[in-house]
């Protein structure tokens, strides 16, 4: 059992009490905070489906000891569209994935959305190698990645247009 500690998730402060000390951040997000967007698959950092932003770093939430992340700030896939919540819109990256048909079974999608959002925050106009490297930690077993790469192009264009 763990004592109370605070986590800021998608801008909201949460107190976590009565957890088990070995709990991962992924477990806390899904099972304690009701945020099932981050997916649980390999639990060893291979698949990337649990990817979140911890402060300013993209990490696998399954490999973060939740109690060790006390008082840090987490952004999950649920937080990506937060600024559009009122008007029911998706974020630019989410919309690009829909438009490109880059979602099949959908299990890898939340992690890929986080990885691509982070990529475009750092590289507004990434070349192909940079894109492939940025999503190398996110496994998709359905699409063959073609439409995902197409979605990254669309998202990058949309974001650049929005900023000009």
């Amino acid at each position, binding site marked *: *059992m763990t004592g109370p500690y605070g986590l800021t998730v998608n801008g909201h402060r949460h107190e976590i009490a009565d957890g088990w000390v070995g709990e991962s951040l992924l477990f806390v997000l899904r099972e304690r905070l009701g945020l099932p967007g981050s997916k649980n698959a390999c639990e060893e950092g291979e698949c990337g489906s649990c990817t979140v932003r911890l402060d300013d770093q993209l990490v696998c939430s399954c490999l973060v000891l939740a109690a060790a992340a006390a008082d840090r700030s987490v952004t999950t896939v649920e937080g990506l569209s937060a600024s559009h919540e009122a008007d029911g819109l998706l974020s630019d990256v989410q919309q690009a994935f829909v438009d490109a048909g880059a979602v099949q079974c959908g299990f890898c999608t939340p992690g890929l959305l986080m990885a691509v959002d982070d990529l475009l925050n750092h590289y507004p106009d990434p070349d192909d190698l940079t894109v492939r490297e940025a999503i190398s930690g996110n496994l998709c077993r359905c699409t063959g990645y073609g439409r995902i790469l197409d979605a990254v192009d669309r998202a990058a264009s949309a974001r650049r247009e929005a900023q000009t």
Partner: protein
Amino acid sequence: MGRQHGGVTVTIARTLNAACEALAADPEALVLAGGTDLMVEINRGGRTVDDVVVIDRVPELQGWHREGDMLRLGATLTYAEMADPAFASLVPALAQAARTVGSPQIRAAGTIGGNLATASPAGDTLPVLAALDAEVEIRSHQGHRTVPLDEFVIGVKANALAPGELIAAIRVPVLDGPQEFLKVGPRNAMVISVASMALVVDRVGRTVRVGLGSVAPVPLRAIEAEVMIAARLDWAGGRSPTIHDVERFAELVADATRPIDDHRGSADYRRRSIEVLARRALIRAFGEPTP
């Protein structure tokens, strides 16, 4: 101090002294940096968690800086930070090794101190640190001591830390000369090495140093190969080594391995891989061989 978690304490240290004090009070506590090794074990249920001292917010353990001809690498320096161009220009082989670790998500969290403390035979920075004759700076409440790499990694996942101690930093030299890190695995990304090798050249000291990974319980050096090639190189003129010298070097490097058969590869495959890597590394460092 840390928060009590039903008999288990998680201490998030904010200074090196605080981390050492927490470990002095509780010498068996787990030291947690990036978590990328430890959490895999916990998630599998292979490890029970007791008290934890979290060191990823200790400023003294972060980043790197130059001290004369040496670099001091903080224990929580991440793989992503080691891949940075400014760092890569000073210790290219370490940057190359860091780039081959896991995914961007893993490289953002995993640390050099964690790689060393875990002391896996497949740890990607270990052959490079062996080739660089790295020194490990260990801290505890009592003080500090410095241990050479070959005395720090003492077996499969075994290190020389005593209870109450932690890795504070790793010191490596800045050398004048080419460096290479090469590794073999089933694919190009996110792979645990089946065999790995670092080649480091010191033009001033006229030495070639070879570190080997995944081919023994601990990182190895290939001393015979190092001595042989250093004696044959044209240090002043810069002429490439001969085909004969390259072949002999590769053979001697392979002879230095002590590989085993396991689920990632056979001993024969590992030995053969190292022979190929040794040849490749030498040619990359000194150019195509002369007849």
